[in-house]
């Protein structure tokens, strides 16, 4: 099973912490996890996990979209990190290009409009900027991510 973590702008601190947390869960379930993001998002991940205990494979966000569009790779499960309109655009793009079950990981201060626009995806959402615990509680509520791919 393959999973993708797709990250946008890392201006909200919870993104990196939650990405590492989800990556650990997925690794433990046997997923091959790829993390895609812009340079800043990937740099934060790699600097937070220098020995790559959690983050095994990374790629540039634009290259990831290109590879999905060209059908050079695909995933079973795709987490899209969303705290702005741009995240919704990336979610719609991945939903259109991939057969993966999509999971919208929504955070920030104004999450309701983002939840409404993520219909069709599994929603993990909490008002969170600095504190990852509300999102972590929702992630822990999912007992098996692999079950979502079946």
């Amino acid at each position, binding site marked *: 099973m393959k999973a993708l973590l797709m990250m946008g702008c890392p*201006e909200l601190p919870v993104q990196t912490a939650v990405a590492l947390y989800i990556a650990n869960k997925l690794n433990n379930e046997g997923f091959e996890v790829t993390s895609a993001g812009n340079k800043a998002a990937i740099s934060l991940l790699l600097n937070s996990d220098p020995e790559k205990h959690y983050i095994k494979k990374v790629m540039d966000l634009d290259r990831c979209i*290109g590879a*999905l*569009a060209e059908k050079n790779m695909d995933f079973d499960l795709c987490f899209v990190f969303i705290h702005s309109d*741009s995240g*919704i655009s990336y979610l*719609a*793009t991945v939903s259109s290009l991939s057969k993966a079950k999509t999971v919208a990981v929504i955070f920030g201060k104004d999450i309701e409009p983002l939840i409404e626009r993520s219909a069709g995806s599994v929603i993990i959402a909490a008002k969170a900027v600095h504190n990852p615990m509300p999102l972590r509680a929702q992630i822990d509520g999912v007992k098996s991510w692999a079950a979502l791919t079946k």
Partner: protein
Amino acid sequence: MNYEILLPNSGFRECADFIKKNFKEVYYVPAGFKIFDNYLVGLPPIPLAVDAGDVIMPYVKPCHGCFVLRVPGGGEVERLRKGKVGEG
């Protein structure tokens, strides 16, 4: 890519509406459509316009929202006209 920004830092819907309202020759393409060596990001169908030899397109940046760009069309204009998915 040379470009002029027609609408800065907006939501994708605003950018799509801007293109549909302000240009006559509009084509609709799927997400991931490749143009000017970029793969388009957005809610499909994504509107692209042709105007005075230029392509008018939405462009999403993760940190800055969506922009409407005017880009010198070159060969992309003819490619859009030949391979159009739908016309607005």
